[in-house]
């Protein structure tokens, strides 16, 4: 470090002092902004290569596409609810009263060349933006990349996801077509249900009664300035922290908690990430070319007395829509006031609960496991059965709510009763996650067991041999050291003991209640995990299975399988009576 440091600091000075680089853009810039310093941080910065590390990049690039296409659309879009009578090329709407917002969206779609394409790219990339953020978050969750020191970036990411959803809903609502107006009507119903201040908020937000005449222009500035500004700031912070903390990496040969192995930012990562931007743009453009999205001319302009079957929000609001649909019709009346649980809970509480759980999760896990170390090596999901189980449970609950949001489409396309789906979902949302938690956790533990088996006994070669005594057994071969290391490089956890309630003199120890809860949770958290074999155990296992080992003592397998072929592979043969 010391040597590179010196050469880096010296370089600009010499270039400037001997005047050699006059007119050279590098020295020009370096003289002014210390370009070489930036380059030192950036140019050879290492990025580990794995497909799952590129999910966040999809989100980043779709955001860039959204900015580009959105700017294009804003050149024609008129964010006004003033009513006009349409006379234009789409003659099915000729003579119809509509807002300027809707009319200008028709104009973009039909009269501006490429306008429809840009609208469709904008909408597709919005769908992909939030989808990519979601799967990126799931990747971070299941691999434990949110652990110290990355908790702040986890929180920033959650903020991005939440704002992304809001931004998407705002955009969906702008064209003032029948579908977006219905969405706003529902939002209005949810705002109205807020206790005490509901109707006041409604009148302030809509500038009077719903729908009023100001909301679209207000929403427009939120959609094109306020939220994108915050998104941009948060994305910058997200990236700066990523740069500073460096990317995590999978366990593997040569990978340690103190290094990062991969390709340099320049040229490899520049080419790959830059190329990926174009490919993301290309995919969304092709989607926009081939698949029609949000055909507002078919929905017609918003009219509060009209509605269409299949009124649904875009996918990312689908789970909230599902919650609204399956919620029982509870309403409380106290002293002349109404609390609409049927709207409040799905409309506000469900989202609040999910995001709160996600936000506190890293801290909760750290508290339970007592793990205060820095982590730069990712967990394989199987090595964290409880976390994996919780994640799968969360995905299940989300997925069921999501399905419930499309219950009418499911009913018509799979010929099921709408009412039956709703009733099923009312219970499944609670029971489903419990079941999938148990399955996923046990599954992960089974995979641990299989890993342990691989480590101790090698892998099955498929070669069956017959001993002189007539017994059959399959040959197991040891793993390569690379794969063995990959499997074995998971953490061993020291258990957190349950503190004594009283000390040796019978005095109640302080703070033990919380500690006791924590101890119990800790036990549950790591319960049933297959402990990683120690070096001694591994040695013992390998010794046990050496050719001199008691192959036949336990009978072995006397199967009648035959014909295992080695297939040209080379390995040191070791026999095993194990399965």
């Amino acid at each position, binding site marked *: 470090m010391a040597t590179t440091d010196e050469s880096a600091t010296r370089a600009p000075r010499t270039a400037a002092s001997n005047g050699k680089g006059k007119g050279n853009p590098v020295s020009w810039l370096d003289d002014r902004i210390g370009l070489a310093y930036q380059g030192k941080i950036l140019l050879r910065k290492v990025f580990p290569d794995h497909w799952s590390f590129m999910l966040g990049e999809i989100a980043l690039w779709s955001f860039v596409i959204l900015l580009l296409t959105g700017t294009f659309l804003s050149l024609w879009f008129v964010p006004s609810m003033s009513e006009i009578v349409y006379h234009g090329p789409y003659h099915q709407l000729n003579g119809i009263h509509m807002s300027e917002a809707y009319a200008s969206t028709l104009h973009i779609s039909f009269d501006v060349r490429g306008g429809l394409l840009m609208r469709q*790219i904008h909408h597709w990339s919005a769908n992909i933006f939030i989808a990519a953020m979601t799967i990126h978050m799931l990747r971070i969750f299941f691999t434990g990349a949110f652990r110290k020191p990355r908790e702040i970036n986890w929180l920033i990411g959650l903020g991005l996801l939440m704002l992304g959803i809001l931004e998407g809903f705002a955009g969906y609502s702008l064209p003032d077509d029948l579908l977006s107006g219905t969405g706003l009507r529902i939002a209005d119903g949810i705002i109205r249900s807020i206790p005490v201040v509901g109707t006041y908020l409604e009148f302030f937000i809509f500038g009077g009664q*719903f729908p009023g005449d100001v909301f679209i222009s207000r929403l427009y500035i939120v959609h094109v300035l306020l939220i994108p500004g915050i998104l941009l700031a948060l994305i910058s912070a997200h990236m700066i922290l990523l740069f500073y903390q460096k990317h995590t990496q999978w366990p593997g040969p040569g990978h340690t908690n*103190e290094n990062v192995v*991969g390709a340099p930012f320049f040229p490899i990562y520049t080419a790959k990430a830059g190329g990926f931007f174009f*490919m993301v743009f290309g995919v969304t453009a092709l989607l926009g070319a081939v698949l029609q999205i949000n055909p507002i001319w078919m929905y017609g302009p918003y009219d509060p007395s009209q509605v269409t079957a299949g009124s649904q929000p875009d996918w990312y609001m689908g789970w909230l829509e599902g919650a609204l649909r399956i919620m029982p019709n509870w309403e409380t009346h106290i002293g002349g006031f109404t609390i609409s649980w049927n709207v409040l809970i799905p409309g506000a509480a469900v989202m609040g609960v999910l995001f709160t759980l996600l936000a506190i999760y890293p801290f909760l896990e750290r508290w339970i496991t007592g793990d205060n170390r820095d982590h730069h090596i990712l967990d394989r999901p199987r090595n964290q059965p409880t976390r994996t189980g919780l994640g799968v449970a969360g995905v299940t609950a989300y997925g069921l709510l999501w399905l419930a949001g499309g219950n009418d489409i499911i009913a018509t396309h799979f010929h099921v009763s709408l009412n039956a789906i709703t009733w099923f979902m009312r219970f499944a949302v609670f029971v489903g996650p419990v079941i999938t938690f148990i399955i996923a956790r046990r599954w992960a533990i089974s995979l641990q067991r299989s890993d342990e088996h691989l480590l101790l006994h090698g892998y099955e070669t498929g070669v069956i041999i017959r001993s002189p005594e007539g017994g059959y057994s399959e040959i197991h071969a040891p793993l390569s050291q*690379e794969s063995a290391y990959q499997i074995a490089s998971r953490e061993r956890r020291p258990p957190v003991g349950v503190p004594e309630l009283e000390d040796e003199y019978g005095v109640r120890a302080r703070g033990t209640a919380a500690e006791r809860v924590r101890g119990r949770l800790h036990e549950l958290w790591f319960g049933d995990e297959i402990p990683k074999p120690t070096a001694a155990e591994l040695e013992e296992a390998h010794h046990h299975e050496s050719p001199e080992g008691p192959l036949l003592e336990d009978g072995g397998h006397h199967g009648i399988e035959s014909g295992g072929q080695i297939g040209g592979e080379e390995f040191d043969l070791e026999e095993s009576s194990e399965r």
Partner: protein
Amino acid sequence: MTEGPHPTDGHPDGAGHDLAALSPEEPIPNPGLPPHEPRPTDVDAAQERRAERQVAGMFILAALLALAFCVLYFVIPPPSDQSATFMGYGASNLALGLTLGLALLLTGAAAIQWAKKLMGNQDIIEARHSTASPPNVREEQVAAFKLGVAESGFGRRTLIRNSMFAALGMLGLPAIVLLRDLGPLPGNLTSITVWKRGIRVVNDVSGTPLRPSDIAEGQLVNAEPALFFDEVGPNGKVIKAKYTGTALNDQKAKAAVILVRMLPTDIKSAQERAWGVNGIVCFSKICTHVGCPISLYEQQTHQLLCPCHQSTFDLTEDGKVVFGPAARPLPQLPIMVDKEGYLVARSDFHQPVGPSFWERG
């Protein structure tokens, strides 16, 4: 690119790392980075040239497609020309999208292929620095901050400090107060509609007034108050609609109704029957859940379903909820027949229409 796997930036500082975790009983030692293996393009000149041709070919194709985009932009008329279709799809969108999309896709694929096949691909290792500052730096900065606090007297001059907090706190108020004019106060607007005694119930869109005899059993009429349409008065004079534009939408969002006709004997509630005319009953069209307009009427079961969240109302029994998330029955509008034989409202709704709210009781 010939640099081997070498640890740059060796940073011995281990603050924040719990090295105790790496116990000697680890079963498998870290074998270190496997040796670099060359790609076919590294060792075979023919393969290399092939990859080069591939990458350049994709870039050139992308450039041509971008040109094609420009040409098609001018050649193909916009979708407003409804005859410009290709196999039933809008020609403009399809042509522009395909050329642009493929140009972008090929540009990206070429860059990535270049990186994968031809750029140096040696893995390199960078040492991680602890995110935490070294302890001495941390102590220094904490001391500097404390010095700053002491110099400012922030802790000592409590009067100044507290008055500053008061000022900052109060400055938040104008920010809130300024928002007051965002909209009027609700008043009783959430509880009333434009319906009142004598206002005709007319067919939506056409605005035609309705006689009971026009409405067949099993019929559904999506209706509005006559105030929303130009009316021809008894003397042939046209009475202009009272509400138009956004004001009309505000009123429609509350006053839209549906009329259905069933056998009077099918109606189970005596009040409902009394508020109707010969089995013709009039209900609010605005769902009591979150306000979608509902007109999904099943003429045999007499149930009304909301297509948004599937609240189902029984129109034979005061619009009570039989399924779904809505809590309140659908308000009924009492109707009668006026002197000329048309259906008119007898009064406004007897309860607020639409979604529940706090003050509703």
